[in-house]
């Protein structure tokens, strides 16, 4: 039941984001309740001001205890994404990276062309790239072919919680893939995550679904079971759908 990423084995197939929580304490509680072993972080300027006593996110979520997956959030060009990637590697001493190059600030959809350009360059630079992408089937294959260790198509746009908009496309991406496919962005609630896993996704990455719920810790736990449930159902292979009713007990033994 484990997920293998960059030659490391993870028992949880859930990856959670660290954004939008009330505070670091809540982030940590949600992370622990989710059972996730990998947590994404953004790489940004530090807050320079009077709040010197304010702790850093990495003080709460230590790279010793969790796999920290830096992302290139906020980048709109390959050039910016490469710059942020190099900073992330220097900060965390690790080649694992979630590549995210966005097209514009309104839709927050991935910029397909720049994602591909950045991925090519970063693979050359020795990074292990998990590429956030659209549900474009041929692009997903291209990202795999240039050496990304995982391809992460969106369920729906970032922060929308709309669930999987194009299940057929995600299905095709999974069927075509030789690397782990992790649905990233757009998951709204536990059933969305279960559906992704039932389809055969290797994992799910989500943030807002937990952080923006009324009770992040409880939703994190719900997500933990949603992922386990969906994976088991996928492996068990669901029954066929029948257009007509079929009785659950044997007809011939009916009392008549």
């Amino acid at each position, binding site marked *: 039941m484990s997920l293998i990423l960059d030659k490391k084995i993870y028992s949880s197939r859930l990856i959670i984001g*660290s*954004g939008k929580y009330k505070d670091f304490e809540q982030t940590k509680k949600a992370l622990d309740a989710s059972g996730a072993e990998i947590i*994404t972080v*953004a*790489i*940004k300027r*530090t807050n320079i001001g009077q709040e010197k006593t304010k702790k850093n996110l*990495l003080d709460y979520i230590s790279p010793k205890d969790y796999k920290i997956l830096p992302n290139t959030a906020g980048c709109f060009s390959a050039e910016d994404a490469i710059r942020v990637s190099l*900073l992330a590697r220097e900060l965390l001493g690790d080649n694992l990276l979630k590549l995210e190059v966005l097209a514009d600030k309104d839709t927050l959809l991935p910029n397909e062309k720049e994602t591909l350009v950045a991925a090519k360059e970063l693979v050359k630079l020795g990074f292990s790239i998990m590429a956030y992408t659209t549900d474009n089937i041929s692009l997903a294959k291209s990202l795999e072919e240039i050496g990304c260790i995982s391809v992460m198509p969106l369920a729906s746009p970032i922060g929308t919680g709309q669930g999987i908009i194009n299940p057929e496309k995600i299905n095709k991406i999974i069927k075509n893939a030789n690397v782990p496919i992790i649905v990233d962005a757009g998951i709204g609630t536990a059933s969305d995550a279960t559906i992704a896993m039932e389809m055969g996704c290797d994992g799910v990455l989500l*943030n807002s679904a937990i952080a923006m719920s009324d009770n992040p810790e409880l939703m994190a736990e719900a997500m933990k079971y949603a992922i386990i449930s969906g994976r088991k159902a996928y492996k068990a292979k669901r029954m066929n759908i029948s257009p007509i009713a079929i009785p659950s007990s044997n007809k011939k033994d009916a009392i008549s």
Partner: protein
Amino acid sequence: MNVILNGKKIFLEKKLSLNDFLIMHNLKENNIVIEINRNIITKSLWHDYELKNNDKIEIITAVGGG
């Protein structure tokens, strides 16, 4: 001389090493990475790097994100 720290201009009275600058401004901590004029300055070089007029310093860290 002036340096630009995370986009803000800062006046320096005298020449300083990057390390002294960080201490002086109470910025030295573990979970940061520093870029000057778009080049990453590895921690082991903070002592040796002498700040120059108009250096663009970026102090970067991990923050919440998905």
